[in-house]
């Protein structure tokens, strides 16, 4: 009996000591991060937390390189990277509620309105003026994605637009000299390229792709805080997009082709064209290094349009070191740091003054830059993911034959969002 209590006691004590032993290291680290807050008198010792996600090792390397430069300029500011694993918005939300959120962090354009509206972000206008940041150098559409009620809440760190990737060999074999430039050509070119095991183009049932066609047709899904999913010009565009799959049978979704996403279908030669962004380039280099491909602007409808995807750096409204945080934020979006983005080739710099440098370095990628001027940020205000989901359901419904027409599907989607 006593032996059992002895064992029990030892076990409890053991767990206790191990726990305290192992966590001291970390508690010290925590205290260290807290200390600067109390020592406002010594401004040279500031530690900032920088919240990012990492979608590729190359992306993380960009940030690390940028921070190395930052450290040279501001030796007094230590920056700790917190790479958020798992669901980014979930963790950010929890950290904000508990006041443990990073000082400066990545903010995607899609959830940005919710955060801007909630007042958890620090408005940047004053800091921009105070530090005379050349804010007009940023591509205006990208900047607008982070404006709310007239205030600026984030500075875009880079961006990507959608372009048309085309398989050069397949184009040659089918005697097609030029990539299609309008809807009619897209259809006929896709027709020529479609063979038994190859589709002319791979199109995903995703609003992040077909919304470009809606804008090309003069439509929009969202304006002035309101959903406008079922406009006739939207239905016309969705009808064209899904028609390539359902009626013309010159296109198909990655799922029906049997791959994970558009990139796979294109890389594996199962589709001759694909609509994707710059993230395709490193992917293709890795997956099919020998593939000869070109990149062109998206074919135009009534007008040219493409989607832009952008991520900004935003500042936590509860940051203890706002001036230092802005120094970091403006450095990361400054010319020097943006040059690193250019050199990496992973995304495009958000600064107009670097566009030429980018085009010079990557002439074959000019289409991305051309698209910037007529691009629409992927963002639906406070309706955000709600609208995104409803729109995806609409295209799913048409492609899977669950709706009679694009108009009917969009009517249903509009109803779904409205309530």
């Amino acid at each position, binding site marked *: 009996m006593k032996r059992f209590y002895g064992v029990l006691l030892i076990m409890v004590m053991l767990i206790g000591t191990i726990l305290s032993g192992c966590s001291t290291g970390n508690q010290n680290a925590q205290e260290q991060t807290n200390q600067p807050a109390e020592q406002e008198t010594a401004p040279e010792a500031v530690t900032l937390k920088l919240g990012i996600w990492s979608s590729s090792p190359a992306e993380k390397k960009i940030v690390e390189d940028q921070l190395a430069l930052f450290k040279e300029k501001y030796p007094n500011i230590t920056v700790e990277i917190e790479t958020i694993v798992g669901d980014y918005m*979930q963790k950010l939300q*929890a950290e904000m509620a508990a006041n443990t959120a990073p000082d400066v962090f990545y903010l995607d354009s899609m959830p940005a309105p919710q955060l801007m509206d909630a*007042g*958890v972000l620090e408005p940047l206008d004053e800091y921009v003026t105070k530090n005379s940041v050349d804010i007009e150098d940023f591509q205006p559409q990208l900047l607008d994605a982070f404006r709310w009620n007239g205030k600026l809440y984030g500075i875009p760190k880079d961006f990507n637009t959608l372009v048309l990737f085309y398989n050069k060999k397949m184009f040659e074999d089918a005697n097609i000299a030029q990539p299609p430039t309008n809807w009619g050509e897209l259809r006929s070119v896709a027709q020529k390229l479609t063979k038994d095991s190859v589709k002319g183009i791979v199109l995903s049932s995703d609003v992040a792709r077909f919304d470009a066609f809606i804008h090309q047709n003069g439509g929009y899904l969202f304006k002035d805080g309101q959903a406008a999913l079922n406009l006739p010009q939207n239905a016309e565009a969705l009808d064209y997009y899904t028609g390539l799959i359902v009626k013309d049978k010159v296109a198909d979704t990655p799922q029906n082709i049997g791959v994970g996403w558009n990139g796979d279908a294109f890389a594996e030669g199962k589709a001759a064209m694909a609509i994707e962004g710059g993230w395709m380039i490193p992917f293709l280099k890795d997956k099919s290094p020998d593939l000869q491909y070109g990149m062109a602007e998206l074919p135009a409808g009534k007008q040219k349009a493409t989607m832009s995807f952008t991520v900004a750096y935003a500042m936590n409204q509860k940051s203890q070191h706002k001036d230092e945080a802005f120094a970091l934020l403006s450095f990361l979006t400054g010319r020097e740091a943006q040059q690193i983005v250019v050199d990496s080739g992973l995304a495009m710099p958000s600064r107009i003054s670097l566009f030429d440098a980018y085009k010079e370095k990557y002439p074959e990628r000019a289409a991305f830059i051309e698209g910037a001027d007529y691009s629409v940020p992927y963002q639906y205000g406070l309706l955000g*993911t709600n609208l995104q989901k409803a729109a995806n*359901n609409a295209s*799913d419904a048409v492609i899977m034959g669950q709706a009679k027409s694009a108009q009917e599907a969009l009517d249903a989607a509009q109803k779904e969002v409205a309530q």
Partner: protein
Amino acid sequence: MRKRYILEVIDGYLFLLPFIISVAVFLIGPLIYAFFLSFQNFSFLTPQKAQWVGLKNYLDLLHDPVFIKALSNTAIYAVGVVVIELILGLILALIANSNIRGKTFFRVAYYIPTVTSTVAVSVIFLYLFKADGLVNNILSRFGIQGPVWFNSVRFALPSIMMMAIWSSVGTYMVIYLAGLQDIPVELYEAAEVDGANEYQRFWSITLPLLRPVIFFNLVVSIIGALQVFDQAYVVSRGNGGPLNATMTVVLYIYNKAFSEFDMGYASAAAFILFIIIMALTIIQRMIFKDETN
């Protein structure tokens, strides 16, 4: 006698003390908090703007077609998965407990899917069940044109059910297995002497004595099935598609809470699910009520 009774009470609570402390500190508080949130228009981003809205969240949910769809998907999922898991789990346990050759091998083989991460299981299944994957390849040899499993309105949910059964039936097998160990060998020996064959022994000894374990498996599998989240989340990349075919209640709650920041509404949905599970558990307890004696 009175003293003994008091001692029993003290012992009872002493044995439960670690559980009571840990639950009181870490779970009950957050739960009550969440319960209050379910009557508010609440977001963790703007706790200062919270508004008391009474039963509005609950009433809205009952008219929310996506939530209703999520409930019906979850119900279909639960019925299919629970029935198959409980039966298949018992069969596998009986096999792994018999004198079959390579017993350890079979135990490990059947348990392996249970310890594999959901992400990996999903990757494997997405690969096997893709449009031109292995499964459709085999089907086509029999002249059957296989569907696009995970991206078809009709087959997406059954595909997820299949995946769930494959990956968690091992858990129930292990529980049955441990339960089978508790049945005294002497009972079987006595029955054999009386001339009972294998089927009779199974129906008159194994099954009745496994009652508490079956009750456990039933309750746990229903609770687990009604809370299905991982598979639906990974396979549909969080959106419950195609066309809400894989939208489950917990996935719906998750989306409301973490991508639409509507924590009050999400909490109300969670408590509706809680009430449903609770009612089902009470019914099961009534059916199995003599199991405590």
